[in-house]
């Protein structure tokens, strides 16, 4: 009786593992995203008075984190001439909505104050302007690390959100262009 239960449990685990590894279930989402290239646009300050160093750090960290996901054929920079005329291009637009500069010293002395907070709206658009994904995400540094670490945390969240989203398949008309 006991050995029967063990055997059925092992069989169930093996079946589950096979299902996860199967290209039908695991590969569908990734193969769709793989068809696209991504262009990261400059970070727009919106109405927020954000330091230029933060804008640049968000932009550079986004490029790094998106490349790490290996979800896209290419991750291109804003203004890159290789992006012109590409039909398989998704454009990432980022606008800052909230920014609290914080202070590393205040964090060290008080623990509860001095946090650096960032909130951005990210839009993933096609070349035609159709929004594929829109999220409002935040990145903070509350305890350890420099202020710019908030930009790294934020970029990682944006990359994860894009990774977990379902990107539409490239239509044949786009493919023909």
């Amino acid at each position, binding site marked *: 009786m006991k050995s029967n239960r063990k055997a059925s449990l092992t069989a169930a685990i093996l079946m589950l593992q096979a299902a996860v590894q199967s290209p039908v279930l695991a590969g569908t989402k990734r193969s769709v995203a793989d068809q696209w290239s991504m262009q990261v646009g*400059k970070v727009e300050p919106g109405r927020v*008075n954000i*330091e*230029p*160093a933060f*804008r*640049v*750090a968000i*932009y*550079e*960290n986004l490029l790094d984190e998106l490349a790490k996901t290996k979800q896209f054929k290419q991750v*291109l*920079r*804003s*203004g*890159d*001439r*290789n992006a012109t005329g590409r039909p398989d291009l998704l454009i990432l637009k980022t606008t800052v909505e909230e920014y609290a500069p914080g*202070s*590393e*010293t205040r964090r*060290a*002395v*008080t*623990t509860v104050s001095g946090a650096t907070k960032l909130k951005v709206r990210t839009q993933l658009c096609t070349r035609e302007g159709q929004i594929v994904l829109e999220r409002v995400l935040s990145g903070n540094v509350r305890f*350890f690390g*420099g*202020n*710019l670490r908030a930009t790294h945390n934020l970029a990682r969240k944006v990359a994860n959100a894009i990774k977990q989203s379902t990107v539409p398949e490239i239509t044949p008309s786009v493919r023909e262009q």
Partner: protein
Amino acid sequence: MIHKILPPKQISRMLLCLMSLVCYHTALIAQNHDPADSPASGSTLRVTHILGFEGISNNATGDLAIQGDALRFQKSEGSSAQIAIGSIQDVILGEENKQVGGLKMTLVRSATPYGGGRVIGLFSHKKYDTLTLEYLDPNGGFHGAIFQLNKGRGQVLRSELEAVRAHVAAKHSGDQE
């Protein structure tokens, strides 16, 4: 055990002495001007590359110098990278207040009893200049690089870049007065 050897009054005195010693030491570290930090020659500055300069790892320390029509970053370990002065779109100055002492200091701070770590935190910080460079690569792709310099050196580099006709916008919200 220690209570058996020393009376409590003496223990508190010892702790006070220890704390003031640590504070004094951290204040010395914060104000210490390493000879390596000062510029070696007219246009060579010792900087820390925070992020974004292509071909250079984050947090690398090295020399930033204007050589002919290029801005060159030479890492301490040997490798280097450079960009054309003409490709620079903007140079923005900022200011950062950072903790000194790294992980060792963080450990000492957290191990100090009676909230002494917070007192150490008050003294163990140093002001730096940050220099944000916005430039274009040969494909027209937008890049942003952030460098950390000793206080006062940022303006020197910016003036030098202005002198060699790098494109520097008049004033930014993040710029120092």
